[in-house]
């Protein structure tokens, strides 16, 4: 196999200006262009992508992913090292970058296409295809300033997939548009892969990388932290990100416990923790076993108490709430300290940040002893591209089978 992209020892420094002299006047008066610090956005980055290969680049915000892409496509110039590319490179760093608002969609296809490297004759030939893919037939001759951001992105992507490159470089651009369109974009990328084109992809979301990329590099503060087969690198990356996030959430919960005093009548929550298959954590995957353990304390035996737990997603959607009311009278008399466990054998929640609330109240009067609203965060990850929403509902699809169809035709 031949090498399509070879990156060797690339370093890129940025200047972070503390004070920047943006005018000639200031620069002359102070005899310098500003006070700045140098920041190594990339250092010692090396890798190769073979023809027809697909490389994903992952890493946290500010790890240098986009800087690396911009170096590969030639927008930024590395300070050290070399980058070689073989074949036509098409870079998709932003959909519809450079659209002119007063131009119609059609005119912008020619303008944007030309800038990205498509000759007019070629665009003439694929125009119908572009329009059809973008589903903007009715709007293609209106100025793009009248477009919604979704329409804008759709047109941008439709141009992009017709670039016909040897090497496709994609920054995270697919976060826009409705889901059906996103799905078609992914299908299109899959097809380009099948056609033997080389793909380099940066994404904050890991699912597309998992789906398309065979290899992966993990950038950490400008350096290649790991490099290898995509599933392995992603798994290690996720483990670290989850561990870090989990620790952060644990310390948040710790603060809550320190700050919040016991509730009415000395009844309170001593500690709340989440447990997964491997012990305490705050990060779960869809389908993981999930336990929420509430340690409580009371001055004496706790009679007729009700424990309530609710889950709320980040955006305020109440996902689920439950109380111990359904549990039989065993709950009516509890020891002064103890653990109450809420056990979900297979967590059906989909990707998101959730917060749990805990309320202990008197089952008889309904009066609360203690209320901890949204105090306990946990994260759910799911690696599903096709199922979205709050929860994964148990489901099964039924399609007309071949046998069935035959009987209909007969």
């Amino acid at each position, binding site marked *: 196999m*031949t090498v399509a992209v070879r990156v060797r*020892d690339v*370093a890129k420094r*940025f*200047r972070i200006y503390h004070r920047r002299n*943006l*005018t*000639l*006047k200031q*620069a002359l008066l102070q005899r310098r*262009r500003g006070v700045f610090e140098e920041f190594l956005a990339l250092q010692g980055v090396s890798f190769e992508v073979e*023809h027809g290969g697909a490389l994903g680049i992952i890493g946290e915000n500010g790890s240098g992913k986009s800087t690396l892409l*911009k170096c590969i*496509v*030639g*927008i*930024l*110039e*590395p*300070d*050290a*090292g*070399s*980058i*070689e*590319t*073989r*074949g*036509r*490179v098409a*870079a998709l*760093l*932003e959909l519809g*970058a*450079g659209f*002119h608002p*007063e*131009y119609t969609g059609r005119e912008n296809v*020619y*303008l944007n296409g*030309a*800038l*990205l*490297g*498509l*000759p007019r*004759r*070629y665009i003439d*030939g*694929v125009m119908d*295809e572009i329009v059809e893919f973008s589903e903007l037939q009715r709007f293609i001759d209106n*100025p793009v300033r009248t477009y919604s951001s979704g329409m804008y992105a759709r047109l941008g992507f439709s141009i992009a997939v017709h670039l*016909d*490159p*040897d090497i496709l470089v994609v920054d995270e651009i697919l976060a826009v548009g409705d889901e059906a369109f996103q799905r078609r974009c992914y299908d299109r990328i899959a*097809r*380009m892969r*099948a*056609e*033997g084109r080389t793909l380099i992809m940066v994404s904050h979301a890991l699912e597309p990388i998992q789906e398309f990329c065979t290899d992966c590099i993990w950038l950490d503060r400008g350096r290649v932290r790991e490099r290898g087969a995509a599933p392995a690198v992603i798994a290690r990356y996720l483990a670290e990100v989850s561990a870090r996030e989990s620790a952060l959430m644990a310390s948040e919960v710790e603060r809550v416990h320190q700050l919040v005093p016991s509730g009415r009548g000395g009844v309170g929550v001593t500690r709340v923790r989440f447990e997964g298959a491997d012990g305490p954590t705050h990060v779960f995957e869809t389908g993981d076993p999930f336990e929420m353990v509430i340690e409580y304390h009371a001055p004496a035996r706790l009679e007729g108490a009700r424990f309530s737990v609710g889950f709320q997603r980040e955006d305020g959607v109440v996902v689920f709430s439950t109380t111990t009311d359904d549990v039989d009278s065993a709950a009516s008399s509890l020891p002064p300290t103890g653990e109450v466990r809420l056990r979900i054998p297979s967590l059906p929640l989909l990707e998101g940040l959730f917060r749990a609330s805990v309320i202990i109240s008197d089952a008889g009067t309904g009066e609360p002893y203690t209320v901890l609203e949204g105090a306990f965060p946990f994260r759910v990850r799911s690696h599903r591209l096709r199922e979205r929403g709050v929860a994964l509902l148990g489901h099964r699809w039924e399609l007309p089978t071949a046998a069935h169809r035959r009987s209909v035709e007969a």
Partner: protein
Amino acid sequence: MHQFKVRRLPKAPVPPATTGPDREGPRVQLRDNRALNRERLRQLVRRELTARYRGSVIGVAWSLLNPVVYMIVYTVVFSKFMRFNIPGTPYPVYLLSGLLAWNFLTQSISASVNSVLGNAVLVKKVAFPWIMLTVATVISAFVNYAISLILLAPLLIFFHVPVSPALALLPVVTAVLFAFALGLSLGLAAANVYFRDIEYLTMIAIQVWFFMTPVIYQLDQILAASHGSRLFTIFRWILYVNPMTWVVSAFQDVIAFHRWPTHRLGLVYAAAVGALALGAGIALFNRLSRRFAEEL
């Protein structure tokens, strides 16, 4: 740090991208960079010329309106109300033939100085030769120049100014002017990314420069004056050094005076400065453009 190097590998071993099963439309040769860049330039010039007037009722006609109006106003004012006397040609014709050259220069640089900064999104997100942004602005100023030149024809007929074979030299003089304008535009466009007040300094400089260029007055009258104050001597020296002096006077010679340029040495000097400006402008632009995406 070691040396930086971006090498594009030879294209030969690249297998042609295979065509997908349901892909339609013509396969054309996509690797011809010259043709591609021509198309980029074409689209950018088109954008420059038409986009501004979109949404207005008369559209691109606006760009015609400007030269038509100033030509009419100048002609009426200077042939009816203020009568300057320049022997050998009607004053409006003299004035407008010099202004033709001057306006091309000022339109080029005043539009170009912002041509990179004003397209920050493109520079940061699309990889293409950014020098085209500035080249396109200068070319669109050139289109306006060509329109003005055509509009000058009825004026010449109206004032009974004969057409001379010296007009054949107009393309050469225009080329000198174009090189000078483009070089200056490239340098200013690139420098303005780093120092944002270059734009304002340019506007002021254009005002001052105008009076240091024999557009409204006649070069030969200044040069013929036998003596003068110290300030006048300095002024004369500025006229000598200013390449636009010789470009403008060549325009006046071939159009208004219907004769071959009288200051040939000056024109050669202007051509040399023009070539130098172009080379320096391209070099400066290429040098500074390495960090455009960071500075914007």
